[in-house]
């Protein structure tokens, strides 16, 4: 039987009332105590298994979020702690991982695509559609102009070297694989990530 902390206090209170403590006239004490206990904060939260985003110990974390995901009840992360099941970190987290909630909620988190015009001293908000179309156009322009189909010896080389792409080792394997596939299909050779540096 699963017993929540609040239920446990109620059961305990009933026990108290029936005991010698109750006989001594303290029968209401347990009820008062149970009423004063705050509900366990994470009881109603959704628990999600995840991995700490920082170093490559890749500690298991449990993310607790509130909001059931219905149309107007957006889920929001409220707490992150170490996953006691994970064989490597066994529930522990370091000063970085223990503060991972502050990363999720950081004021420096980006919300909207931004654009800085040449020579400007500010970012301006733009739509995804504007940003992605412009980026695809810029990439295609540079690729079409500077693509090298054959080298000086006439060997087919099909490479593009005038645009670079730094991928991130903070992304998932699945995202990284897709980056590789897409970027290499363009012939782009300057493709790197943090493993190099």
């Amino acid at each position, binding site marked *: 039987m699963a017993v929540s902390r609040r239920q446990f206090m109620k059961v305990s209170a009933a026990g108290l009332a029936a005991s010698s403590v109750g006989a001594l006239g303290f029968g209401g004490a347990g009820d008062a105590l149970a009423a004063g206990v705050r509900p366990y904060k994470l009881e109603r939260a959704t628990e*999600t298994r*995840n*991995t700490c985003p920082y*170093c*490559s110990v*890749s500690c298991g974390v449990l993310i607790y979020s509130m909001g059931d995901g219905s149309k107007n009840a*957006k889920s929001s*992360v409220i707490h*992150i702690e170490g996953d006691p*099941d994970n064989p*490597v*970190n066994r529930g522990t987290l370091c*000063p970085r991982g223990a*503060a*991972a909630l*502050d*990363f*999720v909620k*950081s*004021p420096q*988190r*980006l*919300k909207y*695509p*931004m*654009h800085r015009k040449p*020579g*400007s001293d500010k970012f301006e908000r733009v739509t995804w559609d504007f*940003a992605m179309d412009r*980026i695809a156009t*810029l*990439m*295609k322009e540079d690729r*079409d102009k*500077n693509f090298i189909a054959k*080298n000086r010896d006439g060997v087919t080389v*099909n*490479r593009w070297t005038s*645009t*670079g*792409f*730094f*991928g*991130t*080792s*903070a992304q998932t*394997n*699945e*995202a990284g*694989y897709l*980056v590789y*596939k897409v970027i*290499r*299909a363009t012939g782009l050779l300057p*493709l*790197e*990530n*943090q*493993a*190099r540096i």
Partner: protein
Amino acid sequence: MTNSWNDIKNADVILIMGGNAAEAHPCGFKWVTEAKANNGAKLIVVDPRFTRSAAVADFYAPIRPGTDIAFLSGVMRYLLGNNKIHAEYTKAFTNAAYIVKDGYGFQDGLFSGWDEAKKTYVDRSSWDYELDEQGMAKVDETLQNPRCVINLLKAHVERYTPEMVERICGTPKAKFLQVCEMMATTANGERTMTSMYALGWTQHTTGSQNIRAMAMIQLLLGNMGMPGGGVNALRGHANVQGITDLALLTTSTPGYLVLPNDREATFADYMKPRGFKPLRPGQTSFWQNYGKFFVSQQKAFFGAAATKDNDWAYDWLPKFDTSYDTLKIVDMMANGQMNGLVAQGLNILMAAPDKPKVLAGMSKLKWLVTIDPLDTETARFWENHGEFHNVDSKSIQTEVFQLPATAFAEDEGSFTNSSRVIQWHWKAADGPGESRSDIQIVADLFNRLKAKYAKDGGAFPDPILNLAWNYTNPANPAPAELLKEINGYALEDLPDPADPSKTLLRAGQLLPTFGLMRDDGKTSGGCWIYTGVYTEAGNISMKRDTSDPTGKGVYPNWGFAWPANRRVLYNRASADANGKPWSERKKYVWWNGSRWTGADVPDYAPTVAPDKNVGPFIMNQEGTARLFSRAGMADGPFPEHYEPMDAFIANPLHPKVSTNPIVRLFKDDAKSLGTPDKFPVVATTYRLTEHFHYWTKSVHTNAVLQPEMFVEMGERLAKARGIANGDWIEVTSQRGSIKAKVLVTKRLRPMMVDGKPCDVIGLPIHYGFVGQARKSYGTNNLTPPVGDISASTPEFKAFLVDVKKTTAPAAPAVS
């Protein structure tokens, strides 16, 4: 890692050198604590600074930054000279007995094949074995031939006496010898030593050779393939292992395959040097399967469009003429050869060396795109931040896009940790505002490019138009679909070669092992080493069984370890030549009379008997591990001590070849190197336990815990320069300068190096002009734009500076 985080508990001796796990990998370090508490392990820390790892060590020895090869070569001399090697292991499982070609030699700091005019090793053919008529390597089992690898190694390391180690490294002789003695206690198969390293070894112009030197020691001690042994890279980001495996690296393709180069005009040219014929009779030489992995990968990329007739779309991959690594990209930007740059979650303005050069390069870009969950200095390189980042926005004509990405809590997918274990994680919430996942952003970019090429044509659209894209939602492929594609599947029914009436796998079924991959186009698979992670049994990376049946820290059903769910690599070497465990204590994988069995998946053909003499290092053509690396390393078949490029002293071993003769250094950067007459102080960079790279300065708790940049300085230097704790100082190198507060400490003490005192200062890397911590100069104002020739990793760990007292920065220090 060759082994795993949990496996550290099996060690009897732990060497932390080139890393600082207690502060940089605290939750992995618990397995060091476990080994000390429950296995009687002794912890050795060798580091320029008395770190928190050192604080709990059984023995600490100081070392001057950038001299690890001198130290480790001295250890090899000690082990070989005092008969403290595991002789049976070394003879059976390494190339110790192999005979090296007559032409090989080493003199005055240079290996044979050096061309003085071209300043490189033009001919490395002498760095190899003598071959017999059958093309097999010649071996002298008696080890009497002076050209045997082990005898050449003895001669090579003979110069690294304890006195020479002290002179170069600044490590007192008695401390050095104490470390040697502690390591030597594991040369027996009864006890093992593990080696834990990180950027302290890689970020040098001798980085790759640092790690080779350690691997050689572990082979001499018989610690490879053993529980509690191995050479273990602790590594950086949560998925740096996965992204390395998946090859976001200029000349690589997923699974440690290599892109074609200009000399490989056709697929046949490409495969010709990749036959990987065994160099000893009967050896596995597993890379003989290279073609199967390559063709299956091309099928994953291009689907039905990759055919035998078009050589599996060989021409659709770019061929490289040179390495476009990070240092090269920055150099091309600085020379105006780069028009566009996409920085996905990589803060290049702060992360690359020589910030003035990076900034000059970025300012020449026509356009820049950043994809990141956080605001970064890279996205705002055009913005003026007073003396911390003094630019003229008007003069920077770069068009910049800053795209908001989701973070770990907001997507699902897998990360691969440094134990090579692939672990799935689930989504907890949506990202803020209009942020999108990396998958959605990249898919959007691709779909737009494809539409534009389909409509308007352009340069060689074939690979873009034919890229396999059979995702349920083409605008946002599901992570599970992508992991299946990485794993691979049968494209047609696969008949059993032993019995053609049987079918091993039906068309469309997921591959259970890379052993089923084929080079005839009947299988697909994006990254062969990941095969087995997503099979007909489901997504194995989701497995969360916490049991450890043998108690050796294996956890076989937690996630999936590549390759083949193997937790300790080369584990057949945990048994002797007859297949018997070296000791009862270290029993791990052994021959039971009919097959290999034990705690782990054998790294070996499961039913090949020991009397077949198949070596345990199945990836090598020899079947043995290499004490002599043949031509595999660009800068020599044995490691050699060279000074860092900002050299504190002339190399006592060969003053005319003081630094590594081949390094990653661009023409215009030779002027960027410093000399000790102008910059007499040695500097090294490192990470704080409260911060992660340039990331957590935007995280409240961490910005509170360590709010501002500081420089660690020893008491002697501070006193000599009239600097007190908390003073503002200016640190200058040949590249640039920074101002920061000083922390005067006992953790850094001067060493005597080649007869002169050597002071070392320590520089955390984490600060910049964006975030919640105090604004600061970038530490990379100081670091040199030069890297290792094999890995192109920059030399962040050893360079020269000068220091002087100054006043607080003029601009407000609070952002």
